[in-house]
Structure formats: structure tokens, C-alpha cells
């Protein structure tokens, strides 16, 4: 019954083949074109001008979608994301474990951003009103700051967490710290953190232009000069009009894909809808109230300090006057060694002897000891012996006498720092 000529038959299959080919090409090329291909033509600008532009930027209002991808090379341990710090959790025991403890406490939840890819929605209206939502699969975690009230709502567990900020904090340092590191995940803050570390140890250049979230942007390229640093380069895309940093990419020296990549995928500089910042706990939600002074100083801050220790600290040792920024608010027993990118945080552990996790005060059990040995390796140096724990960016050294050295420096740098500190102390 075959009447159709083979040619004609074969030609028909060209249609799906073409459609599939065009689709694959479009899927493969369009994002590439959208993100990198469009290098807009912008007037040349020097690094200083660009940094000044960022500093002078007075954009107070924006809303948008932020994509954050973090690959620090942390070992995939169960509970590492949310339970990696000691004691921050209130009622997690009652919820039967699992990845999600039933508490909307911001501190635990924000550490989840330290691994994997997340989509955030941010809205900012001045220093007193911010909203941050972590878009999850069929769930959402929202942090809303409206004046002195900070609300956190977790839709997966239908729980809310309420913190009232102390009055004076609500004015001054409020946006810096109050919402549990809310600002740290926006590109602005991430860029500022790095710019703080700009000094003789760092080369800052302008490296072309890019299109980020539909905006024309200059690219600031920051490279550490210190050989011990594990940071290869930091790239910040700055909006050409407003001076708002739109994208932050941190590439480790070891190469590979970016260790931290935070950037807007959509951004709008118009005033966010006022209703965005109104939050009332929904009916039926379990609400946890927190006393104002308990909002900070918790161990929940530790992961941030760990991962940013290298960039945070401008000055030398914690003791002298130069290191005021860094020393302020640091837990006792913490001291910063070295300068700039090569700085290493030295932490005296209260118990003595290695404990699992860097700086998280948990007691040592034989099992924990075994676990610790499993993902660390032994190192010897001037300081004696210790265990080395490495990630792509942050490395830690735990000596047998219970001192932890953490920094974004190579293993050799860490051993050197530990050796000289041991000699000095």
C-alpha cells in the first residue's frame, strides 16, 4: 500500500527535527546571549569612579528577584544547612527532625542559603522596610522588616517568628544586622563587604560591561594580590545609571564555577507596593515571640563570620586600634591574624581539643570524633599537630590544643598563620 515516495516521507521528519533543533539552540543560546552576549556600549570609567559611584548610590527603593548560587564545596552532611550551628533552635526537638525544623527563626534559615541555588525575592524601601522571600518548592520563607518589627514566616510549617528591635537599633545600625543578615544576601551588601577589604593587598579594575537583569552595567574586577588567598577573583556588576551593584560573583583560585554567585535576575527601582511590608501572622500559624536582646549575639551569626572572616577584617590583630571594625562584636576568644585577604581568624575553643564544626560549640562524643576524622586530615606544623578541614573557599585548621584557625586562605597559609601565632602566644 505504500504510495508515499520515500523522499517525501523523509522530508516530513525534517519538521520535528527542525523544531527540536531550533528549540535546543534557542534554549542553549538565548540565556547565554541574555547574560553575556549583550555587552552594552558604555562610556569608559575608571575603577575609582566606579567605586565612588557605588558609594554615592542613594537608591533606597527597589524590588526584584535575586538568584543566589553557592558552591563552597562543603561536604554534604545531613543537617549541615540548618543545624550546623549550636543551640540556635528553639523547639526543633518537638518537630521530629527532618530537614526542616518547625521554627521560623531567621538565623537558622538564612544559613540554608550557604549551599545550593536559591531564588529570593527582595523588596527594599528605605532603611527601615525590607522584605526577603526565599522561594522554595511549593513553600516560601519570608522575612519582613517594617520599622521595629521583624517577622519571619515559614509556609511549609505554617510558623511565624516575631522579633521587636530595640528602639535605637531600629534607627542606627538596624539595617546592618537586625534582620539576621538580611542585607548580606543582596548584591549591594555583598559588594560593600568586598570593597571594605580594598587596600594594598588588592587589585581593583574595571573589566568591561555586562547586561544584568536587563540593566546596563559596568563590571568591577577585584583580585587579591596575596598568594595565600583562596579567592581567585570577585566580579561585581554595577548598574550604570544608579550605581547599584546588581551581581556579585566570587571565583575561587582553584578554578571551576563560582563559589558564590548572587545577582538580580529582575530588578525594578520603583517604590515597592506599601502592602508588601505589612505582615500579620496568618490565622492558625504558630507564632514564636523573641525578646529584643536575644535577637543578636546568638551563635547563628557564626557561619557568616566564618565565611566572611577573610573579607570582613581590614585591620591587623583584633587587639590593636586598626582592627576596630573587625573586633567589634566578635565573640571573646576570637582574634584576627594577618591582613586583607590573607587574614585568618583564630578562635580559642572553650572546651579544648577539636570539636566538630568550626566554631560551633558542641560537645565531643566518640562518634563525633570519628566523623571529624573522616572529613578532615591531619597536619603538622610549628604549632604541633591538628586537623585540616578544607572547602573550595574557606579552610579551617583545628589544633589539638583546641584552637581553630579559619580563613579564606590556602592550607599552607593557614599552617603558616597557626605557626606564627603559636610562636607569638
Amino acid at each position, binding site marked *: 500500500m505504500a504510495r508515499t515516495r520515500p523522499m517525501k516521507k523523509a522530508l516530513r521528519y525534517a519538521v520535528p527535527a527542525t523544531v527540536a533543533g531550533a528549540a535546543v539552540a534557542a534554549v542553549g543560546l538565548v540565556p547565554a546571549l541574555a547574560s553575556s552576549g549583550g555587552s552594552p556600549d558604555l562610556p569608559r570609567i575608571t575603577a575609582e569612579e566606579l567605586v565612588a559611584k557605588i558609594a554615592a548610590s542613594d537608591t533606597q527603593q527597589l524590588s526584584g528577584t535575586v538568584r543566589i548560587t553557592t558552591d563552597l564545596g562543603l561536604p554534604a552532611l545531613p543537617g549541615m544547612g540548618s543545624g550546623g550551628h549550636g543551640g540556635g533552635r528553639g523547639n526543633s526537638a518537638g518537630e521530629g527532625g527532618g530537614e526542616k525544623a518547625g521554627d521560623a527563626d531567621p538565623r537558622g534559615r538564612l544559613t540554608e542559603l550557604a549551599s545550593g541555588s536559591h531564588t529570593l525575592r527582595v523588596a527594599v524601601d528605605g532603611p527601615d522596610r525590607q522584605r526577603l522571600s526565599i*522561594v522554595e518548592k511549593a513553600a516560601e520563607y519570608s522575612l519582613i522588616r517594617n520599622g521595629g518589627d521583624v517577622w519571619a514566616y515559614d509556609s511549609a510549617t505554617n510558623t511565624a517568628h516575631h522579633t521587636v528591635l530595640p528602639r535605637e537599633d531600629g534607627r542606627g545600625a538596624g539595617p546592618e544586622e537586625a534582620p539576621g543578615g538580611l542585607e548580606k544576601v543582596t548584591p549591594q551588601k555583598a559588594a560593600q563587604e568586598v570593597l571594605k577589604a580594598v587596600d594594598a593587598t588588592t587589585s581593583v579594575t574595571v573589566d568591561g560591561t555586562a547586561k544584568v537583569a536587563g540593566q546596563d552595567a559596568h563590571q568591577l574586577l577585584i583580585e587579591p594580590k596575596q598568594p595565600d588567598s583562596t579567592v581567585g577573583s570577585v566580579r561585581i556588576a554595577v548598574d550604570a545609571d544608579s550605581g547599584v551593584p546588581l551581581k556579585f560573583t566570587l571565583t575561587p583560585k582553584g578554578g571551576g564555577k563560582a563559589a558564590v554567585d548572587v545577582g538580580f535576575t529582575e530588578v525594578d527601582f520603583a517604590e515597592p507596593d506599601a502592602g508588601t511590608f505589612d505582615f500579620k501572622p496568618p490565622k492558625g*500559624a504558630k507564632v514564636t515571640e523573641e525578646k529584643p536582646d536575644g535577637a543578636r549575639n546568638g551563635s547563628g551569626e557564626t557561619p557568616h563570620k566564618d565565611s566572611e572572616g577573610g573579607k570582613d577584617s581590614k585591620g591587623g590583630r583584633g587587639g590593636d586600634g586598626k582592627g576596630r571594625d573587625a573586633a567589634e562584636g566578635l565573640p571573646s576568644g576570637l582574634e584576627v591574624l594577618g591582613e586583607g585577604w590573607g587574614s585568618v581568624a583564630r578562635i580559642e575553643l572553650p572546651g579544648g581539643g577539636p570539636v566538630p564544626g568550626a566554631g560551633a560549640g558542641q560537645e565531643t562524643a566518640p562518634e563525633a570524633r570519628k566523623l571529624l576524622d573522616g572529613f578532615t586530615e591531619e597536619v603538622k606544623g610549628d604549632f604541633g599537630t591538628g586537623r585540616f578541614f578544607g572547602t573550595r573557599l574557606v579552610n579551617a585548621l583545628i589544633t589539638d590544643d583546641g584552637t581553630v584557625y579559619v580563613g579564606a586562605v590556602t592550607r599552607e597559609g593557614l599552617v603558616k598563620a597557626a605557626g606564627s601565632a603559636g610562636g607569638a602566644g
Partner: protein
Amino acid sequence: MSRAELPQDERTGRMGHQGHPGHSGLPRRPEREAEGGEPAPDRDGEPDEARRRPSPLWTLGLFRSELTVTFRRWRTLALLAVLAAVPLLVGIAVKVETGDGGPAGDGGGGGEGPAFIGQVTNNGLFLVFTALAATLPFFLPMAVGVVAGDSVAGEASAGTLRYLLVAPAGRTRLLLAKFTAILAFCLAATLTVAVSALAVGALLFPLGEVILLSGTTVPLADGMLRALAIAVAVAASLVGLAALGLFVSTLTNSGIAAMATTVGLLITVQILGAIPQLDAIHPYLFPHQWMSFADLLRDPVHWDDLLDNLRLQGLYAAVFGSAAWARFTGRDITV
């Protein structure tokens, strides 16, 4: 199978379209009692461009008859009944679980049980979302796979396909009618789950204001609208699989083989989608953004993934739809 062996009845349930008077006596299989168009002689079922000038109304008739054929099947009704039973089971389970005053099953999206299940006791409307989240990974696509896989191959194995093609509709038009009928089934299946869940939810639990994922509370009417939008989004999520099933269905003359292949492909793709090491290919798999329907429950709605999903489904429909067309129009129909 010659014409003489086939029963010469089953003319009653059909719509009268402009026919070819000389060929009114074509045979039908009893189960295929309604189908579009009067038959016309067509050389061995090949499409004949010169003779194919049917009116749009005629196409509508073809589609309507396809719809009737699909929905009159006992199998289709059984599938819908199973789908309608899922929300009932979930609802009763949640009711029994929480009947002693204990809290709703916590966790929700955390991997224990389908998403939103923790909210069901507060608001029966959430049973709609829970039921859709529970049926979307397998129940719904399996039903669609059965219907889509059977659409062409089932006709072929029943021996009715060549007679269907004798009609002046042409193969392209027939394929379009088939595809439209499958899409109608996707929507019907989703709405069955949603309506059944709403009924069960209203019976067993209170209805009221809806708490969105962002913590915003909206009135029930708004929640209902969102539920409807979600049902449509879920139905649209099945378009890619429907096209895939239609293509598979044109490959074989065995209805069972086509159904098994389609469902097998679905399971394979779901497994591939669950392997984290393969995340490079995940964006190309049709179930990749299936759960994006939940984004309709955010405030404001998060469109990125929803639109991604629609684009992906459209892509699958275009690729496998045209592949089905290429296969079906170029193929020899001997049974």
C-alpha cells in the same frame, strides 16, 4: 479484515456531516460508534489535498466525535473515577489522623507527604492543592499517558483506523482532532481531581480565608480563583506528555504497547529527574517545572517558573506533535 466482515450498523449515534452519498454504508466497529464525517473513498487512506475541502464546522464535528469516543469509554470513566477517589482518600486520611485533636500533619513541603497537607485541616480548599500536588507526579500523567497512547494505536489495533481515514478529513486534521481530545481529557482529569477535592474538602473541613505561601491572607473567592488557575496550570503541565503519547501512539499498531511505552517513558523521565547528578539535563525534562503551579499561591505571583513550564510544554507539543504528524501522514495504514 475486509469490509464485508464488519458490521454495517452503528450509524445512529453520528452527526450528519456532508457526506459522500455513494459511501454511506461503511462499516464501524461497535465501540467506535461516533466519529466524524461521512466516509469518502481515499486511496488507501492517503491524504488527498485536492479533495480535502471540509468546512470548519466539519472539523468541529470531527473533534466532537473524538471527544465522545474518548469520554464514552469505560476505561476513561474508570480513570476519572480513580482520580476522583484520590482526594477522597487524602481527605479521609487527614481527617482520621487529626480527628483526635492532634495537629495537622506537619512538615508539608518538607518531603513527608504531598505539599500543603499541613494546611488542609485549617482550610478545606487546601485539599485541592494537596490533591493536585499528590496526583501530578504519577496519577494524572499516567491517565493521560493511557488515553494519549491509545488514541491512534488503539484505533489501529481495533481495526478502525483505516476506516477513519477513509473520511475526507485527512490525516492532519484527524491527528489534530485526536490531540485536541487528549488535551480536553487533560483538563477534564485535572478538574475532576480539583472538583472532587473541593467537595471533599468542603465536607470534611472548614472553608475560609486562604493563607498564601507568602503569609498573606486573601478572601475565599480569591483563593477559589487561584485554585482554578492552578487546575488550568496543572492541565497545561500535561500537554508535553500528551504530545509525547500521541507520537508514540502513531509508531505502533498496538494500543497496549503505546500506553505501556508512554507510561514507561513517564516513569523513566521522573527517575532521571530525581537523580541530582543529572541536573544538566533536568531543564529539558517535561516534568521539570511541574510543581511550579504552587507559585500561583505566592503574593505576588512568581511567574518565572510557570512561564518556563508553559514554554517547555509548548516545546514538547511542537516537537512531538510535528513528529507525530510526520509519522502519521507518511505512514502506511494497513490495519
